[in-house]
């Protein structure tokens, strides 16, 4: 093995990955931006739908939400938004919760919450679409 510069505790694999003490790279930043873009596009498409159904009765609302194109937009929006929510709240927790145990529990709760919210919304849209 070479005895070149750098810590001898660091394996060549580790040095090549270049991730340092944070143990992660730019993946989080990139996903935040990608989901921000998809949120923006999907919100702009969903906005006219929301304005249309605002204040409508149950039958009219269900008829609108049940249309395949509307349902697909709302499903994509929910997926994109809850993903963005999860990694956004992760940063907030990491910034303000310093106790290691509480932090890990908060990060797990964040994952549970966002997946539950996304799944519940998706189930509701699918149930309406499939005419249940």
């Amino acid at each position, binding site marked *: 093995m070479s005895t070149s510069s750098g810590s001898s505790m660091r394996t060549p694999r580790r040095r090549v990955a270049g991730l340092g003490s944070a143990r992660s790279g730019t993946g989080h930043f990139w996903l935040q*931006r990608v989901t*921000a873009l998809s949120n923006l596009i999907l919100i702009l498409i969903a906005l006219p739908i929301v*304005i249309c159904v*605002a204040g409508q009765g*149950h039958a009219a609302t269900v008829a609108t939400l049940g249309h395949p194109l509307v349902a697909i937009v709302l499903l994509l929006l*929910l997926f994109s938004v809850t993903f963005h929510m999860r990694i956004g*709240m992760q940063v907030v927790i990491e910034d303000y919760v310093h106790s290691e145990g509480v932090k890990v529990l908060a990060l797990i709760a964040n994952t549970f919450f966002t997946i539950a919210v996304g799944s*519940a*919304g998706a189930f*509701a849209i699918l149930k309406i679409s499939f005419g249940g």
Partner: protein
Amino acid sequence: MAGAAERPLSPHLQIYRPMLTMMMSIVHRITGVALYFGTLLLVIWLIAAASSPEAFDLVNGIYGSWIGLIVLVGYSWALIHHAIGGIRHFIWDTGAGFGPEARELMAKLTIGGSIGLTVLLWIAIWLVKG
């Protein structure tokens, strides 16, 4: 950190004079956290629509009340503000807009734009509802 040398700490928030750009950064985070919980409003409404006409009327009634409408207006403002703040970040991601005038202008556009678009949105909803 037992045995570790005392390291210099970077100064925290209280040492800085409040500035508009700093406030916009803080508001971007606050609106993000508010929207995190605000998504529940959308999902509760969807579940009510999927459940029964009675459940839907109940939720629609709550959302359509004065308190409900105030929350919805606040929610829509937070969403628009966070969205425009996000577009600001996209501009910064290209390397542009970091100068003193540009970032100050973008901060003002974010506030003005979010309030203006929120008013327009509710006028549009009011017009469609008739």
